[in-house]
């Protein structure tokens, strides 16, 4: 009952956030000078063709009307049709999103699976050489622009060593994508690098904090060994704040996906977004932003819910 109430409230909030997003995005887009028609139709287009285009796309109507219309169709799950790609936006997203999800989810998983033990290990070896080395490495990983890192990896592993192919899997279906795991290595590593850096830092801090908690002393007073303390108590307690951060990391992951997709010729959401921006393809742009925002909002929502499950105190409102 309590949980239901909580969920309802959070979902309503999420909807409010998404509504704000659509308004902001819509207004920003239509603040762009010139409108999309000339760009879409090319330099050769005539005035008549431009007017026809604007009329067909409803761009000649007042902004609030357009917005209302957009919301109306949105409610029916219709995101409009791309100006340039000859596809419904929903179809495009349906094709591209899974590919990006593969990339981001794999990156996130790899990132977390490495970052969490690394961070804990660092905390245990605090201020020892190993800690300094990993800290420095994670600073470097964090500080290297993704595109630079990607390039270095490509140069090294595809051109010099030739260990991995230079392109991500090119298949259209997920099965085809997974059929070529070697091709996934570089894109995933590139996407995971900064994640490893950031989350190992979080984990290190959280672990350190928990290690100094009184309950650790209690556990030791009860004769528990270091390993047991770390894995039975500290690990779980440190994980919750880290999980809470994950939701907010969704946009960062998508931002990274854009670069990775460009570098590795992997047509996912990031590229769809980017090329839509380049070609003033408003419906696609709106659709992409909406998907990313919804993913972020859902991500934070899930993080909250997970935290509520993992940490009974949250539910009781005492944490």
């Amino acid at each position: 009952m309590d949980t239901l109430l909580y969920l309802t409230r959070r979902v309503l909030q999420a909807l409010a956030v998404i509504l704000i997003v659509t308004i902001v995005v819509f207004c920003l887009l239509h603040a762009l000078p010139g409108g999309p028609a000339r760009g879409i139709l090319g330099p050769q287009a005539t005035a008549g063709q431009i007017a026809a285009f604007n009329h067909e796309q409803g761009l000649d109507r007042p902004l609030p009307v357009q917005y209302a219309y957009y919301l109306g169709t949105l409610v029916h799950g219709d995101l409009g049709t791309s100006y340039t790609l000859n596809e419904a936006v929903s179809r495009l997203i349906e094709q591209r999103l899974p590919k990006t999800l593969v990339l981001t989810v794999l990156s996130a998983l790899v990132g977390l699976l490495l970052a969490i033990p690394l961070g804990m290990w660092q905390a245990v070896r605090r201020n020892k050489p190993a800690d300094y080395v990993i800290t420095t490495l994670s600073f470097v990983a964090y500080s290297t622009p993704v595109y630079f890192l990607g390039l270095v990896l490509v140069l090294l592993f595809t051109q010099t060593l030739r260990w991995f192919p230079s392109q991500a899997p090119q298949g259209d279906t997920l099965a085809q994508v997974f059929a070529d795991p070697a091709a996934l290595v570089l894109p995933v590593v590139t996407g995971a690098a900064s994640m490893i850096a950031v989350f190992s830092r979080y984990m290190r801090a959280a672990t350190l904090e928990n290690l100094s908690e009184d309950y650790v002393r209690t556990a030791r007073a009860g004769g528990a060994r270091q390993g047991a303390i770390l894995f039975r108590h500290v690990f779980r307690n440190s994980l919750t704040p880290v999980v809470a951060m994950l939701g907010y990391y969704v946009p960062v992951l998508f931002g990274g996906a854009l670069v990775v997709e460009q570098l590795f010729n992997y047509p996912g959401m990031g590229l769809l977004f980017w090329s839509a921006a380049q070609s003033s393809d408003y419906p696609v742009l709106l659709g992409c932003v909406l998907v990313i925002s919804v993913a972020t909002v859902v991500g934070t929502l899930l993080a909250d819910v997970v935290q509520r499950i993992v940490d009974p105190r949250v539910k009781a409102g005492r944490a």
Partner: protein
Amino acid sequence: MTAVLHTTVVAEPVAGYRLSLRRFARNKLAVAGLAVVVLFLLFCFVGPLLYSTDQTHTDLTQVNLAPGGAHLLGTDAVGHDELGRLMYGGKISLLVGLASGLLATVIGTLWGAVAGYAGGWVDAVMMRVVDAGIAIPALFILLVVSAITSPGALGLIVILGLVSWLVPSRLVRAETLTLKNRDYVLTLRATGGTHGRAILRHILPNSVSTIVVAATFQVADAILLVAYVSYLGLGVQPPSTDWGGMLSAGLTAAYSGRWWLIVPPGLAIILVVCAFNAIGDGLRDAFDVRGRG
């Protein structure tokens, strides 16, 4: 605690800061970071006085020269001296990074403080705006805004400031939520003090460590963001440049063996961002606040 203080009342009013300073000084990475930042600031802002180059005119007779001779780090594709350009681009990178990081911190701080302090529906609305801001990809806003206005250094500062104030605002709000129920704020309110005074005199000064730490990380992120933005072609307009712009322009020469167009700006970005992160890390330890790992 109290008993200790009874006997060892400290006379120096700045003891708290001294202590922080000492803790900071013990963090070797942080001190190294500080040194790196200072060196780069000198390099970019004083360097041009010692090593002056023409960064406004191109010289098509001197393009793509390898390091050596008159050009210590060679020249780029339109004949700019690369070492001079590193200083010139660094000015923009550092300036934009610092200024937009600070701007983001200021906006975020005020927003977070007001939201946290006001509470209730004001807080709810302000935080939903922050949530929405986090949910809208910064890239989208960058794309749109840079399509409307031509981002010079100043424009870039404003744009980057406007897309990155969200995280500090959340941090400061969280801090405010605890601070506003501190007894000294309650006392002020119970005796008729104004809200402005509560925020300006109590809440903000007491969040200063959180804010300073957030600002440092923000600057690191901003420098990285500048580089990213330049990579996407949304950065400062040519012929002005920044390290990110230099790097992404240099990337096209990656296979041509012209390492001097890639390595210097790449290293500069990595070093400076690392340095700010290390400083932030040290400050966080010194001030003992929570925040990014």
